């Protein structure tokens, strides 16, 4: 059994805990983190907006690309420690939702955390990336709440006409 666990900053501990709670110990676990190039890209763009500074000052986006690699490695290390079983660490770069779907191909389970509004039950509890992955996953999905789930009372009222 191959289990892919998509780890995102802030919400990853819930995914690791779900693996510990629901996945048999013999399963092959892949801890996946995707670095999106958009954040260093923001710095590249801001620097390009500073007309005339090319070559005079260092492009901050370059430094952030290096920093990003280090922090992704730290996140995967922390997750592996929390999981406390053998696991493969996988770091990918690109659009997160597409990379996750690609890695999940042929897997027996994909674990991910909700990435939207976590105060109410409902479709908005999935952000755009999470929505894409859930809709396109080529395997069974285990979707967890990052913290304790909202109360069932947050359910919207039923539509007026039955």
């Amino acid at each position, binding site marked *: 059994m191959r289990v892919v666990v998509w780890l*995102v*900053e*802030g*919400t*990853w*501990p819930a995914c690791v805990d779900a693996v510990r709670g629901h996945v048999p110990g013999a399963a092959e676990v892949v801890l996946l983190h995707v670095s*999106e*190039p*958009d*954040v*260093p*890209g*923001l*710095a*590249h*763009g*801001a*620097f*390009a*907006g*500073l*007309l*005339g*500074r*090319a*070559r*005079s*000052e*260092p492009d*901050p*986006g*370059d*430094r*952030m690309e290096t*920093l*990003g690699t*280090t*922090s992704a490695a*730290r*996140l995967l290390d*922390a997750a592996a420690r929390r999981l406390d079983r053998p696991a493969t660490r996988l770091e990918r770069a*690109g*659009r997160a939702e597409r990379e996750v779907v690609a890695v999940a191909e042929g897997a027996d389970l994909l674990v991910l955390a909700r*990435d*939207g*509004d*976590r105060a109410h039950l409902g479709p908005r509890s999935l*952000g755009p990336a999470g929505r894409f992955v859930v809709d396109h996953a080529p395997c069974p999905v285990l979707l967890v709440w*990052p*913290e304790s789930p909202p109360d069932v009372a947050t359910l919207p009222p039923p539509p007026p006409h039955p």
Partner: protein
Amino acid sequence: MVRPFGWPEAVVAVPAAALVVVTGAIPLDHVRAEAAHLGPVIGFLAAVLVLARFCDDEGLFRACGAWMARWAKARPGRLLTAVFALASAITAVLSLDATIVLLTPVVFATAARMGARPKPHVYACTHLSNTASLLLPVSNLTNLLAFTTSGLSFTRFAALMVLPWLVAIGAEYVVFRRFFAHDLGAAAPEPSAEEPPEVPVFALVTVGCTLAGFVAASALGIDPAWSAAAGALVLAGRALARRRATPLTVVKAAAPSFLAFVLALGVVVRAVVDNGLADALGRLLPDGSDLPALLGIAALAAVLANLINNLPAVLVLLPLTAASGPGAVLAVLLGVNIGPNLTYAGSLATLLWRRIVHQHEHGVDLKEFTRLGLIAVPAALVPAVLALWLSLQVVGG
């Protein structure tokens, strides 16, 4: 990474300036006037660049990272507040270059160490480098150019701009809290053990004295650039004495090719303005400095900045608005400083140029960038113009 055409922009601008002078597109006395006008601005700019660079060497920005992490207590919402406070202060005092080049990587590293999603915080840096650059003449090169045109003293400039500055930052903060609510709601799981930051006392005292020097110089009628030069010399001198810098690194910190670029751009823009752009834009610009005129000027400035970058935009608009008084000049600044948040890379011209030389967007979600800009720019610009109008009534132009 291979970068075709990755040379300094001065390589293009300086020959272009030489060309317009040689072909007579601009009369020689206009070249002289432009150089005399830009000379002190460039000196001032060089001093601020050196000051920021050696503040970094003194560990100021490292300390900023530690302060932010401590204040944030592993909560992304609190981190955003800390980023807003520090990025606004750094931009105002050490200029937008310091925020983009020196602070942004520190903010990114701090968010990553906390386990927080870095995007809202990095976006905050890029937006505030523009929006929070309204306060002082030193905050932005556009301000330095307008400052010499407006005839305002350093303190009067700051007194008129403090309210628009605060209002614009406040508006950005509200927009960010809502726009990034989900990212900021994701708890940071590992409150990392932060060692107490080493306070860079020497840098802080020097910057404080430089600021006091601005006020004193403006009261005594001396050019405040001297105060910036003194601050830069003190920090650079200390680095030289401790052998942490060489004369060459000091000269490099002043970014000579950038200074040459500014001068060349000034000459080229003057030639374009002389040859018809002044008449064309003069018809569009509202006269006077009542509230509707200020709003119109700021909006036009914002649009122009998004088309051709805010540096040429301010060079074009300043001569046309100087006659309407300081209110109109400051309205131009609100437009050209807040406006660039709308377009990735600051303007369509830069974006197009990057396409041409194949420096693509590095995967930035342009839809998200523009959506945030479409909300944040009007939300900051309109109240800021209102605040400027109010300041003009209270402080007086």
